[in-house]
């Protein structure tokens, strides 16, 4: 039935060399029915699905290699350590970091941003200082900085955006001053799909000597990431948004910054020597990895990177672009539907509202059709306020989605309008 459903979805189309039917076979979760309908998974910005090779790698670790890392002289501990550190090197190559010790494993973006807040922010931000975030940030890149500002007596400044959902760079430049200690922006907006001009944002901050943290949760799954080219000081990744298991993620930080920072969590594995008088800390990256990490998840992240590398990523990006354009066209054509977030540069997410229908009701009716979308504020309440709406419905795409699925979405949206007419 799966093959039948995929017939005529553009496979083999000259304009689209991407073999989506072939790629879908890599993701076992997609081949199921929900409420009697084929699953249409359009909630990738919340969490992406996991390919069989990643599942297999995790299983193999648990079946054959599991032990604690960095501790034992015994065989299994060495195998686990090798696999875990191998995943770190895969991450380094994936984002083009200079050294693998600049890649700190964390459970996800939220933990990663909190690591920088505690390690960098609490050490270097003082009363009267300023931290800049943007108007489109996820709560994960707002709340930690608010907590820091409250603790230190610092001020949070916000880069505004226009009605399309694009940051206003001139206003941003005007916010930068000698009190600015850090700029924190997302690469791609989870609520609006906007791709922010990170290189430009970083360059303007660096002119003033201000470091930049990039929340890469939605960037890493959709764009080619080169942290040296971006010149980002910190780049944060969530594994579960790029086809790896939950509990995996990375803080990339420039070595000289990570060296100057305080540790985050204290405990085992992050120390060099411990006495009751004084503890000295381990070098990078261990200084930031206290306790036993999510070994299986991080090895899974390494496997997800291998998987991505096995694909033609340029074709994947082009295909995703095509999907978003097609979905935008389809939904825009429906009377009563309004797209939220119309930036010129977008990827991944399509937020929309239907006149006089609350997004939750949209989500429930779509679910009855087997379609998974997110309905709500997307952990970006300030974005909702900026557009004067309580919430949106959001379809978010991955390279395994099809145009046929978007057709299914469009008819289901029509159905919502009928139910509420």
């Amino acid at each position, binding site marked *: 039935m799966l093959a039948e459903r995929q017939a005529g979805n553009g496979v083999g189309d000259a304009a689209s060399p991407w073999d989506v039917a072939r790629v879908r076979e890599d993701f076992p979760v997609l081949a199921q029915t929900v409420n009697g309908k084929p699953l249409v998974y359009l909630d990738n910005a919340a969490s992406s699905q996991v390919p069989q090779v990643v599942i297999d790698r995790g299983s193999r670790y648990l079946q054959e290699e599991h032990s604690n890392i960095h501790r034992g002289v015994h065989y299994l501990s060495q195998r686990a350590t090798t696999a875990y550190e191998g995943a770190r090197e895969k991450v380094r190559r994936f984002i083009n970091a200079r050294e693998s010790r600049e890649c700190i494993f964390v459970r996800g973006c939220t933990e990663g941003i909190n690591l920088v807040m505690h390690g960098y922010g609490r050490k270097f931000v003082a009363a009267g200082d300023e931290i800049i975030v943007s108007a489109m940030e996820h709560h994960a890149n707002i709340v930690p900085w608010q907590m820091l500002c409250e603790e230190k007596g610092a001020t949070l400044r916000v880069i505004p955006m226009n009605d399309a959902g694009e940051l206003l760079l001139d206003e941003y430049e005007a916010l930068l001053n000698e009190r600015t200690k850090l700029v924190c922006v997302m690469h791609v907006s989870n609520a609006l799909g906007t791709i922010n001009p990170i290189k430009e944002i970083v360059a303007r901050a660096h002119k003033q000597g201000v470091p930049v943290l990039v929340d890469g949760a939605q960037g890493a799954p959709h764009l080619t990431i080169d942290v040296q080219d971006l010149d980002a000081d910190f780049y944060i990744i969530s594994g579960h948004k790029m086809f790896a298991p939950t509990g995996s993620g990375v803080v990339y930080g420039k070595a000289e910054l990570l060296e100057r920072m305080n540790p985050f969590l204290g405990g085992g594995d992050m120390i060099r020597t411990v006495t009751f008088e004084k503890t000295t800390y381990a070098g990078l990256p261990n200084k930031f990895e206290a306790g036993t990490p999510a070994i299986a998840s991080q090895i899974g992240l390494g496997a997800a990177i291998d998987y991505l590398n096995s694909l033609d990523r340029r074709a994947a990006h082009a295909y995703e672009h095509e999907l978003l354009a097609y979905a935008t066209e389809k939904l825009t054509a429906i009377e009563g539907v309004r797209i939220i977030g119309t930036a010129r540069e977008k990827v991944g997410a399509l937020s929309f509202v239907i006149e*006089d*229908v*609350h*997004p*939750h*009701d949209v989500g*429930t*009716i779509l679910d*009855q059709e087997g379609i998974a979308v997110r*309905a*709500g*504020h997307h952990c970006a*309440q300030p974005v*909702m306020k900026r557009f004067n709406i*309580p*919430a949106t419905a959001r379809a978010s795409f991955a390279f395994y989605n099809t145009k046929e699925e978007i057709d299914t979405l469009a008819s289901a949206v029509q159905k919502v309008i009928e*139910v*509420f007419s």
Partner: protein
Amino acid sequence: MSELSELYQQVILDHNKKPRNFKKLETANRHADGFNPLCGDQLTVYMQFEDDRIADVSFEGTGCAISKASASMMTQSVKGKTRAEVESLFNEFHRMVTGELDEETTPNNLGRLTIFAGVREFPARVKCASLSWHTLHAALAGEDAATTENLGADITSEQVSA
């Protein structure tokens, strides 16, 4: 009737479009704010509480069709009732939407509120239907806010056994 049309019955759609008692109550001596932090729904329940009885009640706020209709019909059901009657009704309503009370086989005082029975087929929407009741309960208790962030409170029996 499909589960969907069971959920979005005409009465519910009507209360969503034209919610009853949808205003700030000037004579209110108690009120509470309700939040569903997971989805951003928020409402305020106002009540004039006299001689252990809800003399008048109203609500304001934003939310989905289920939460708005539930709040609207709740205000109609509880007006004139004593605190004990309201708490008992809340208990029955909550047990109905979480699948613990079968309104067809168990005697109850739910009356028109049984229209929300279909919600139990949609575990993710139980919080929408119960938000106004939690808020009413808070106002009766003299608290000023209620929240549905404690998911455990609204878990259906099906979810527990999953």
